């Protein structure tokens, strides 16, 4: 596919503008069925844009886009390298698969007069997430973070039960505190460096060395983003938010929102603060390592005890976020690659798992483990996809999950941290146990009086995205090379200093400091 040169140059801006416009159109249409169309069309377009951006990023190119023609550091620049190109692909595809699923699912779960607002919020959330990912400006991250956060509070609150409001509130409070922390951190960094452009901050921290203010700023940023990424012990909002949100929204959020926060964390730690400051002076690696281990242990152990499948999957997400944080904390290229890879693979499996449960909810109205008993007979395809995605989550060979687990293992062993390697493996056995509980329940014979005894397979528009994702879990388990290339490229790019000198024109401002 070849695009006109003019259009191709504008792709980074379009990545943001397309969903933003779709949000506007969805709101203006004010129609429960039509509102889905602009969102989905925009979803397809955004995916295409993300793929095009990833294609050039895979060659090792860094795309710089000066927004509005204002050269950084005066204006805001968008900056796409291998890592955020990968994240863009993840969030756009997570959104698209969930959107296709959402048409029937949302119509069944949400009051009709609210549906267009849901798609509007969905697109705003996607805009915010894509913006956080694509931007090269630290303050711009905060702006988009607020957009995506506010939109996701709305998304969660639109859930079918009244508890959704409470869940949204429990999300809103820590979310706002986190955003505030992030803003305070940025303020401190700005105070010392006098710039908000990521590359500039990195350069000045590199030149000027560090002081207490920068250290405090860095910690505020890490903790603030840690809330949004749901790293233990800042995870409390996540289980009820995923449980109460509409099923398709839960799939979207599970696949996209925490991933972006983890990405931002990676960007700040490795590129802006640099590994010397973050890991050398501040011991953030130790902090993250401890929190990651706690996430893995707590997430796995709590997930085993859940009786509500969406909640179970949410707790499992906390454990998986621990994996991704762990790779970051290991800090070696293999660890960074493992993290980047698992961002992608975890989105593959978790979106599939949530969509599968969404299908059950569509047919039975419940996602309790008890109501699932016997559902496998009525919904063979849904259940098969659930099993495949579940095996990927466990890390069975020939599924995507195995590849990222292998990288994480190799990274841990490279640092001679074999207890961590053991922890990773034991927790994947625990994952096998909690997914087994769901799968074995579904394949039990159904009691005669339960709704599961009479259910039929979900409609094909809900089934198609699910099956595609299940196949993708197998595909990327056998041939992980496309994602591997991006992930390894990202690991290389993150290990060298943030290139800024040759991109940013010397400016009067940068001389004054």
């Amino acid at each position, binding site marked *: 596919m070849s695009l006109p040169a003019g259009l191709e140059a504008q792709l980074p801006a379009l990545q943001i503008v397309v969903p933003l416009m779709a949000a506007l159109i969805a709101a203006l249409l004010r129609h429960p069925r039509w509102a889905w169309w602009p969102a989905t069309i925009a979803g397809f377009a955004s995916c295409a844009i993300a793929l095009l951006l990833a294609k050039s990023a895979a060659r090792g190119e860094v795309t710089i886009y000066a927004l509005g023609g204002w050269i950084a550091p005066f204006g805001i620049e968008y900056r796409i390298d291998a890592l955020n190109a990968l994240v863009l692909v993840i969030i756009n595809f997570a959104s698209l698969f969930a959107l296709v699923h959402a048409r029937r699912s949302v119509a069944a779960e949400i009051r009709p007069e609210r549906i267009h607002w849901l798609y509007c919020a969905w697109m705003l959330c996607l805009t915010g997430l894509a913006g956080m990912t694509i931007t090269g400006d630290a303050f711009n991250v905060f702006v988009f973070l607020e957009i995506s956060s506010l939109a996701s509070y709305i998304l969660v609150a639109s859930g079918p039960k009244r508890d959704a409001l409470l869940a949204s509130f429990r999300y809103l409070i820590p979310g706002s505190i986190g955003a505030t922390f992030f803003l305070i951190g940025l303020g401190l960094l700005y105070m010392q460096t006098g710039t908000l452009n990521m590359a500039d901050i990195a350069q000045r921290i590199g030149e000027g060395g560090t002081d207490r203010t920068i250290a405090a700023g860095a910690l505020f940023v890490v903790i603030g983003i840690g809330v949004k990424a749901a790293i233990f012990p800042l995870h409390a909002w996540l289980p009820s938010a995923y449980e109460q949100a509409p099923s398709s929204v839960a799939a979207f959020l599970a696949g996209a929102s925490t991933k972006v926060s983890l990405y931002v964390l990676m960007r700040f730690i490795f590129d802006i603060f640099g590994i010397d400051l973050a890991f050398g002076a501040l011991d953030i690696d130790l902090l993250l390592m401890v929190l990651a281990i706690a996430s893995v242990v707590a997430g796995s152990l709590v997930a085993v005890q859940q009786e509500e499948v969406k909640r179970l999957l949410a707790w499992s997400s906390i454990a998986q976020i621990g994996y991704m944080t762990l790779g970051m904390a290991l800090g070696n290229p293999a660890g960074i690659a493992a993290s980047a890879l698992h961002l992608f693979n975890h989105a593959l499996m978790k979106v599939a798992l949530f969509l599968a449960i969404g299908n059950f909810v569509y047919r039975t109205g419940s996602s309790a483990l008890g109501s699932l008993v016997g559902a496998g007979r009525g919904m063979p395809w849904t259940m098969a996809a659930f099993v495949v995605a579940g095996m990927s989550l466990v890390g069975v*060979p*020939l599924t995507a999950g195995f590849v990222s687990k*292998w990288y994480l*293992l*190799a990274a841990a*062993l490279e640092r001679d941290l074999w207890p961590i*390697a053991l922890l990773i493996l034991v927790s994947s*056995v625990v994952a096998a146990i909690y997914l087994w509980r769901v799968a074995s329940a579904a394949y039990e014979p159904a009691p005669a009086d339960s709704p599961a005894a009479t259910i039929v397979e979900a409609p094909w528009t809900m089934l198609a995205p699910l099956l595609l994702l299940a196949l993708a879990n197998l595909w990327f388990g056998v041939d992980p090379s496309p994602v591997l290339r991006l992930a390894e490229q990202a690991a290389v790019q993150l290990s060298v200093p943030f290139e800024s000198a040759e991109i940013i024109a010397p400016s009067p401002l940068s001389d004054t400091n």
Partner: protein
Amino acid sequence: MTIPAPEILALGCIVLPLLCGGLVALAGRYPDLRETITLATGILVFAFIVGIYVEVAQGARPQIFLAHFLPGIDFALEVEPLGLIFALVAGFLWPVTSLYAIGYMRAHRERNQTRFYACFALSIACAMGVAFAANLVTLFVFYELLTLATWPLVTHAGTPEAKRAGRLYLLILLSTSIVLQLLAIAWTWQAAGSVDFRLGGILQGRMSEGVAALVFCLFAFGIGKAALMPFHRWLPAAMVAPTPVSALLHAVAVVKAGVFTLLKVSVYIFGPGFLLASGGGRIIAFVAGFTIVVASVVAIYKDNLKARLAWSTISHLSYVILGAGLATVWGVAGAALHIVMHAFGKITLFFCAGAVLVATHRKRISELDGIGRKMPLTMGAFAIGSLCIIGLPPLGGMWSKWSLALATVDAEQWVLLAALLLSSMLSMAYLLAIPVRAFLYPAAAKEPKDASRSGEGPGESPAEAPIACLVAIGITSIGCVALFVFPDPLFDLIGQVVPLHR
């Protein structure tokens, strides 16, 4: 006729059973066609393996590249002598077991026979993959698939007991392999930068001896299919499966895949010299010695025939582990030989147990008094199988036990030698007691409780099992004798790996 290249034959050994699984699933409505497909594929696969043998015996090492997987790790196959021995055994016994299964499953009126034959074929495909894998990761993939493919066979009956057994099966096999074995593989990769099987090992000089000992222990316990104590509980539980499954998979293909993997790790990853120096092999050899004796003692107390055979299998798997752990020339040879000899002996015993079950619905040894006069062929074969397992001439088991005993003498491990001899005596007690009771004791006065429960079959006056079962039993019994008389091809193959002829 020209024989196709051995590479194609080796690939065929994996692809054909896969195809067979698919065809069987499609032909489910026509039992005769379904079973013809299984039998024909089995015979064809064995012919393929013989074709590979001709080449490998002359020193060829067919290599097949399947796909790039991770950087530096490919999906690839390579046929080497030890893997070929394992493939020969599994490939020969699959059609024989299929023949037996036709008699058994029909006479026993088992349900879901299509699923049974399909999963059986898939399991064989995975076992062949284990046999021919060129590196640890490829092997690990087939190893895990083998667990998953056999699980429906374990839970075949669908009873709560079968489901419990299935859970235990998955839990132990998956958790040991995911936690311990995968850790060991990743550690190997980290240290050596490779996971390929190389004669002489890849770890020497790349890993300190202490770490190497630890990693070998991780392998030994992580390969749960080898049923080394304390990870042996799944094997007796899996006996709830139909008898052909217990016979081929839980006496030959699955469990031997486990000990074979360990043998391969010992020879091709560590290398005998390095393993000896690290001391890890000796630790595992002692654990194996412990398992050998304890499992034999437990076997004596089991009245359920299949349970007793299962405990005997646990004991004899550790013979192979002992040989792999000692890693001397005769240790490796004994381990490889015991994979074959025990396979033929134990499958005969399981066939006989199944034949008794089909003909009389008796599962307990205490109910078998005097049955030899009604089923002389079956119980005669049982005696041959027992002698083969015990390791007496003129049966194949003698060669492997002799080699293993030599290995303990070479290594001057007298405790292990004592364990081997003690186990031989215990084997006599728990195995030979059965034909003795069957032939010499007066017939049981009253009917056993659960006989004729399903209302069919000659519960009152037992006769021999269906003819298909008898033919299969005959083939494996003759095999036990033939292996004593003609062990040379095996010795030649092993001689390509370790210097047997000094």
